[in-house]
């Protein structure tokens, strides 16, 4: 009997009612399906990555998982307790255990506070730590994320992008959370700094036993820090499984195209790409059947008439496709 997953999302949907033509008050509002029937289970001490392009719904899903957004339907279970049904005070208690590191390190820090106060605020509020103990714990946190504790009195603006993100990470781990949502946490950083932060996240996971829900679009970094991956397209997870296997032998044609389009610093690999035709469909007017069929190089008539089922394509791997590609390496 294995332990239950730390975070479980069951049949999550997040729909918005949108009036496409704001000038016409009689136009029928349409439904934007940001997430549509998503299931994820994240095990303890693993990093589960969500990848996909803009509009795929990955950021929405991350916010729904922490109930920073209310799902339209479905349920979220965290550490055995129901997140979706929690009251405001229960939720506040839960929030200590699940933290967020945001994409924009500067925007997520209050510009009028000193970084020592930013890192120490959760400790003051939730644990009532004050005075020298607080200063000591802040210094300890700063050291553990590679910041000089002497800079505690600096304001966010005086730091570099990488240092700011370290502040965001120090704040997130201050309450010893179990889960951290890293929402594009390295995407806005310079390449050389990205690697530093990726290393830090991995190190903290191993040292503190953290679990990450890691949202990103730079596939190389995502692969570096994650164990499993969910590939999102138009609000659905179209493929999920061990990240190395998925990237090596993608089963869903979209996954394959995404990986092929991801630039690698190797000039011998150019022109091997599968260039996807066309643009992603409007999220307000999704195609019938499989959402990807309008761009899919192997689409057949059945893809237009029915939504593809989730099929198993190997050990704990699945893809939503009628014609999954050869996914297992020959053994």
């Amino acid at each position, binding site marked *: 009997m294995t332990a239950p997953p730390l975070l479980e999302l069951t049949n999550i949907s997040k729909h918005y009612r949108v009036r496409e033509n704001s000038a016409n008050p009689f136009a029928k509002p349409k439904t934007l399906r940001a997430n549509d029937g998503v299931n994820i289970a994240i095990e303890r001490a693993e990093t589960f990555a969500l990848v996909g392009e803009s509009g795929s719904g990955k950021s929405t899903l991350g916010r729904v998982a922490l109930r920073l957004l209310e799902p339209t339907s479905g349920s979220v279970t965290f550490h055995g307790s129901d997140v979706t049904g929690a009251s405001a005070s229960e939720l506040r208690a839960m929030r200590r255990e699940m933290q967020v590191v945001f994409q924009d390190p500067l925007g997520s820090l209050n510009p009028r506070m000193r970084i020592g106060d930013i890192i120490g605020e959760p400790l003051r509020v939730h644990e009532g730590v004050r005075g020298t103990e607080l200063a000591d714990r802040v210094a300890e946190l700063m050291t553990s994320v590679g910041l000089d504790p002497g800079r505690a009195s600096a304001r966010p603006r005086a730091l570099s992008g*990488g240092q700011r993100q370290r502040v965001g990470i120090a704040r997130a781990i201050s309450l010893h959370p179990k889960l951290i949502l890293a929402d594009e946490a390295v995407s806005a950083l310079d390449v*050389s*700094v990205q*690697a530093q932060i990726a290393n830090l996240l991995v190190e903290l996971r191993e040292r503190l036993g953290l679990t990450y829900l890691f949202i990103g679009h730079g596939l190389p970094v995502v*692969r*570096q820090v994650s164990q499993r991956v969910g590939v999102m397209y138009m609000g659905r997870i179209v493929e999920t499984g061990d990240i190395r296997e998925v990237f090596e032998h993608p089963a869903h044609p979209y996954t394959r195209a995404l990986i092929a389009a991801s*630039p690698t610093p190797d*000039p011998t690999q*150019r022109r091997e790409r599968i260039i996807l035709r066309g643009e992603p469909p409007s999220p307000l007017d999704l195609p019938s059947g499989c959402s990807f069929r309008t761009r899919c190089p192997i689409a057949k008539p059945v893809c237009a008439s029915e939504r593809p089922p989730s099929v198993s394509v190997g050990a704990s791997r699945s893809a939503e496709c009628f014609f999954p590609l050869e996914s297992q390496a020959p053994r």
Partner: protein
Amino acid sequence: MRNSSSGETLLRLNNLAVNLHRPDRTVPLVRNATLRVARGEVVCLVGESGSGKSVTARTIMGLMQLDRRIGVTGGIEFDGEELNRRGDEQFARLRGKDIAMVFQEPLSSLDPVFTIELQLAQGLRRRERLSRQAERARLLELLNDVGIRDGERVLRSYPHQLSGGMCQRVMIAMALAARPRLLLADEPTTALDVTIQAQILELLDGLRRESGMSVLLVTHDMGVAADLADRVVVMYAGRTVEDAPPEQVFRHAEHPYTAGLLACIPPLEGDRPAVLPAIPGSVPDPSRLPQGCAFSPRCQRATDRCRSEDPPLLEIGSGAAACWHPTTGEEQLAAPAGVSP
């Protein structure tokens, strides 16, 4: 001649420096940008934030010079003509005609209150006067060139009705309307998704091959450079630190910064390193540059000389690097036997 690559030179930057004169001090935005773009060649200008790569492109376009506080020194030679000594008209004449530019944010580069047709036609009318029908036909042809098949619909649209990738195609069409000889593309795909980025890069590559236009592509992404470049120029803290053909840059970079930048990109296949070899520290602020080589505080190979003297750009192999201790020849020495597969 420093660059030995073939082809007639279209653009040459010689020790280009761009300074921002503020009341209290002068900030060097670009200290020494040196590069060459041959006819029909794609040169990728790679660097992180603050490297001066975008400022360099804007200076070539003559956009930086519009600010009175900006001082430009050094040479900008376009098609044998020295631009930097000429006045504003010189730039104005070339801008949008022989040299065109595409920016990072396609949506904010287009005016939200006019249709695509109107905006596209404006660029066209500066060059040629056509009848209504002929003009429309020419516009559709331009859109077709950038891979837009339903041109009629796009012409009628306002920018917000189009996707980012579509807007970037329109911007490229606009740049191409005057049949420029040099296209400056400043991070043209950074705001786009990777599948759309692949389309745009393919488009730029195709246009270059068909029209013989030169492209100077500014990017922070080594992967994009690897995909498209005939030549890679790496900038750090306002200066060119390496300039070489891609085979050399991506096989064994001479400058430790280039090597470090490549090493910290994790692989997409094979084994994952337990720890990524990151470059320590962060990019320096242009107003507080370190003494000597600007990379020396982050460089493991740095010696006292690096910390006191800024190295010149010296020819190495088929490229050039600005480093006192380039990695040349040390690859074989440094790599312990039996480690590499």
